[in-house]
């Protein structure tokens, strides 16, 4: 067990190292230079460009830049090229903005998809199952921004509630309940949008797992010996079908830092995704690389957690 964990961690660190190298190379070998972002700006004289290059080590060879960048990152000293703010602080600030979206979205996904999936598996082929199937494909297939605009148009014209941004601007010192309601309204649409894809996919997956288990011999045995259907479904089948989902808890982790670029830009939500998008537009390499590095680290941490969970949950796996 310990040796498994140790080997796993070493492997993950090596992977992370290669990810850092590759993302660094992708960014720095792509055509165009960060110094050319704003060539029309008259204040951007050649001397200034030189100074800029020197300041951010752009005149050094690539491997030195790599070492300097990751040394700065690991000691927490990286600064954004755009505004000289420490990158980690910036990300932390945006992360706190994205966090409510992530929490509400995840809660919606996990609480809604299980009942839907289990129900449609139990009544396979029925009208409920067929309509749930169709709707989940509909939700998977709809372009997120199109759906967002439909929802916005509906909410704004019918319910007359402002939904863009994190809160209504200039609300002032209203009663606290109003403020809370305002926040909730602004939170609702983006989190629903963030959750739709997840609900659709996860409920399909739950249904598939459940169906697979319902076809097993021990479920047939349970049914044959005359157990009530509830007991067969929820005690014999569901417990075994749940196994893969325990491990999926680990896979939620990467969502923490992703934040949806598209949804956050539609709703002018000052979260991680939008910051990353702005960084891409401004060629703010430190921010792009840090976001990339952190999300890769979270993906690896997530798979690690799910491996461990699998070990704990499934008694058939012994190392």
């Amino acid at each position, binding site marked *: 067990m310990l040796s498994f964990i140790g080997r796993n961690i070493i492997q993950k660190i090596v992977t992370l190292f290669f990810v850092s190298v590759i993302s660094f190379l992708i960014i720095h070998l792509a*055509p165009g230079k960060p110094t050319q972002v704003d060539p029309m700006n008259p204040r951007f004289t050649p001397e200034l460009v030189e100074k800029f290059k020197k300041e951010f080590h752009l005149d050094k060879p690539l491997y030195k830049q790599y070492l300097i960048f990751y040394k700065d990152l690991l000691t927490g000293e990286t600064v954004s090229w755009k505004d000289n703010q420490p990158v980690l602080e910036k990300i932390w600030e945006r992360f706190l903005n994205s966090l409510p979206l992530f929490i509400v979205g995840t809660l919606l996904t996990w609480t809604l998809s299980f009942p839907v999936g289990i129900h449609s598996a139990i009544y396979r082929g029925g009208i409920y199952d067929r309509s749930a199937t169709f709707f989940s494909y509909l939700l998977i297939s709809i372009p997120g921004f199109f759906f967002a605009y439909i929802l916005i*148009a509906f909410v704004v014209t019918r319910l007359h509630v402002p939904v863009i941004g994190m809160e209504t601007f200039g609300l002032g010192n209203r009663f606290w309940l109003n403020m809370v309601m305002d926040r909730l309204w602004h939170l609702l649409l983006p989190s629903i949008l963030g959750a739709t894809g997840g609900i659709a996919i996860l409920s399909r997956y739950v249904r598939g797992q459940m169906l697979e288990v319902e076809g097993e011999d021990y479920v047939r045995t349970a049914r044959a010996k005359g157990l009530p259907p509830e007991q067969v479904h929820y005690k014999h089948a569901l417990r075994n079908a749940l196994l893969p989902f325990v491990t999926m808890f680990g896979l939620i982790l990467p969502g923490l830092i992703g934040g949806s670029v598209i949804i956050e830009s539609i709703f002018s939500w000052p979260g991680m995704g939008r910051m990353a998008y702005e960084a891409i537009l401004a060629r703010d390499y430190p921010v792009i690389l840090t976001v*990339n590095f952190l*999300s890769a680290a979270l993906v690896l941490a997530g798979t690690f957690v799910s491996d461990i969970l699998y070990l704990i949950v499934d008694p058939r796996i012994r190392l």
Partner: protein
Amino acid sequence: MNKIKNIPDAPLAPKVSRFTESCRLFKNNRLSILGFITFIIFFFIAVTGLFLTSGNNPVFDPARIRLHEKLRPPMSRPNPGTLKTSEIPPFGIYFMGTDELGRDLFARMLQGAWVSLTVGFVAVGISVIVGIFMGGIAGYFGQKHIRFDQIIITCILFSGGALLFMGARHSGVKLLIIGHACLFFFIIFKVVWRKKAMPGWIRILRKNAISIDTLIMRIVDIMLCFPGFFLILTVIALLPASIYNIMIVIGLTSWMGTTRFVRADFLSLREQDFVTAARALGVSNFRIIFRHMMPNAITPVLISATIGVATAILTEAGLSFLGFGVPPPHATWGNILSNGKNYIFDAPWLTFIPGTAILTVVLSFNLFGEGLREILNPKLRDRY
């Protein structure tokens, strides 16, 4: 021989081939039939759209600007007073209205259908080819090992090439020369030391470092670490805007699933008797992989490719929405939609027509793909 024939009919399983059985199941799955039909219709629309909107004098001109006629609702008639005869759309009607520059939305949608189709298919084609190649190598040659000296030489040659490409001529050429020298050195030494014992340091270099399977699967792990859409967005934003870059980037960031499928299938297939028989007959590795093993492993790949096309179309639309999509002369459904969103209250058809079109096509691909998956998964068939 005769004796066997004379045995009275033994109870045989009903003779149904896999294909007919699958067809029967497919017919029962109404949603996936619907998806399949929609896909066929979409394909024909895209092809006719290509013919009707391209060329010097297209029937439906997607680029014709009529500033007097902007934001006309669907099924409205053009105003003949302000237009020249060449500017009047065919049949004298705007089937889907006009956009903010007075361009015929119907013509633009026709043109966009072909672009969306090619983006989807080329991107998935690239990802399937890369995926099959990597998965095939990992599954078939997986047990072979790569030696330290091979890794070192490859690294030297690659970094030499990269330096040369970046413009550092001197160090690049030096590295390339060193790499080739090493290569030469090792080939010669292999011949020299065939009989004698090798010195210790060379023996260390010739140790097995890593198996090919591990190497490829680690590459897959690395690729899976990148946040998908964000990586695509970064690369597209840094590269010059072009439809080919989008296809290539989407393709090169989505091959990992295919690789895993193919590898898993190959690992079990390579132990089977027909592969051993083919190898005993002296069939070449290439032919074994592509003629004998691939047809047995292609089904899950095709299913995931069907769904991959849908994902690629959605990704392209998302990129267009953020302003990094296919650049302007081409109309795609994604960029029609992202232009149209500015007029969502004044001209809702500019948002809803392309949006619904994308939705329908992606939905049809997803339904068809999932239907196939369900049919071909024996565990999900009815058992009682």
